[in-house]
């Protein structure tokens, strides 16, 4: 997967690769209880995580990058202009 605009930053890891914990957990001495033929087995399965209603709403409204350009919020007549320059990629709008 390619990540735009991140320049030299390491792409976001989405797999188990380098963050794998395989082999680090201590094996249990207990023998798992057999539950039969295996059809209801949870082998490797975990319940699908649920997000809150608020998160669901946000996900429904989510659009791709090209449709939602990030920008600064103007807060008025400029009296709160910081001494230190803001991020250059997000020009400050200060005027009213």
């Amino acid at each position, binding site marked *: *997967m*390619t*990540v*735009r*605009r*991140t320049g030299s*930053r390491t*792409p*976001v890891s*989405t797999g188990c690769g380098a963050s794998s914990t395989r082999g680090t957990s201590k094996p249990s001495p207990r023998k798992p209880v057999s539950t039969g033929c295996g059809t209801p087995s949870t082998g490797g399965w975990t319940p699908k*995580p*649920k*997000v*809150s209603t*608020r*998160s669901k709403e*946000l*996900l*429904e*409204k*989510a*659009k*791709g*990058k*090209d449709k*939602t350009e*990030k*920008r*600064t*919020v*103007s*807060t*008025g*007549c*400029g*009296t*709160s*202009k*910081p*001494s*230190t*320059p*803001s*991020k250059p990629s*997000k020009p*400050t*709008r*200060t*005027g*009213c």
Partner: protein
Amino acid sequence: MTISPPGLRHTLRLEADRALLYDRVAHQYFPLSAGEAFLCTAAAEVGLDEATRMLAEKIGEEDAAEFRAQLEDEGAIDQNGFTGRLLEQRDIKGAYAAPLVCHLGVTLACNFACNHCYSSSGQRAKDELTLDDIKRLVDQLVDIGCMKLVLGGGEPFLRKELPDIVAYADSRGVDCFVHTNASLVRAEVLERLAKTPPASLAVSLDGPDAHTNDRVRGPRAFDKTMKGLEVLRAHWPHGFNLSVTITPENADLTPRLVALAKEQGAKVLLLRPAYPAGEAMKDTSLICDRETFARAIDLARPEAERLGVTLDAPHPHEQGVPDFDGFGCVAARVVLGVDPRGNVTPCLNLPGGFDSGNIKEKKLSDLWKKGRGFVLLRAQEPGPQCGTCKHYETCRGGCRVRSLYAENGLGGPDSWCHYEPREDVVPLKTPKHSPKRTKRTGAST
């Protein structure tokens, strides 16, 4: 920059239809897309990887990964979710759910007597807010997610607790922006202030020489401020801005003001127009019209470019339609003001009739939602000119102080407005205050 305390770099304000991320490093609010806001909320619920996967299903892997990378780069999210403070807020029609900026007059006491002073400061009032009152105000700002506090006056350095106010706000995650005439800054107080420096220190100066400056700011004001700047250069490593209120008297002198800013070592030179408020109402020759302000900036720019001075001056010809999320004038919609006695108003430049209550008696959030002046401004309906202008949906008539001063009423146009009738209406034959020059794009220099 050290963020104090840790973990308070970001505040995320979630309204029904918008999300704002305040970043204390940039001292800015950033609108987040729904997808970015989703990552902030869902990461804490299902983990960042799962939240990213869910978002990728909706908008594609590449965009989801980019949103995540941007937020991670800003330090806003990590594997455990959003790293800052998240606030769910109820919408208010025609305004943000809570103000983004609070302007606080910390005292009415002032050692200067500026002819354009919006607050008519001079003598300290007996019933000014105590330090505890101000701390309670800061607590309320934190509760509602208003993370920018502008400290003016009067002269803030006449308030001995100024460093305590800034330190307390900082400890709660609120950034302070101090406006001063610099005449009273001393090494000792700067040392106290430097323990938790404000986000900015802006020094007011209204002329490049004593003659011009003192005509507005009082006898010997120029010399006192120059001495203050000397102290700042010696004892204040955080830098300062110079802030000039443009009047018809100093508008043509901006190239010299740029040179002075360079000579004095200011980081930024801010130019702002004199508003029809306070003392300026007694000497209306000081009030700045649109073309005068435009000329001041046009004259300043070449010199600023030549000398490498950063100019912060919103050009009225280029700015055109202000983009305040369609709110127009920021009063009651984006900002509020609190005077030294605790009276809350949508804007400190507005006349007293808009005062909506006192923070010693009422909650700030209630005043923002239901205060008389706030409701009045938000209920504004367009008059004949604004109602036929193509810009009304975004500018909402512009500055209400100037509209009231021009006797255009709350529904009338800002005296700086440029009227451009919609194509589907019959244009007004005699629009008010509509300058001939209406081009809004392209540099004027």
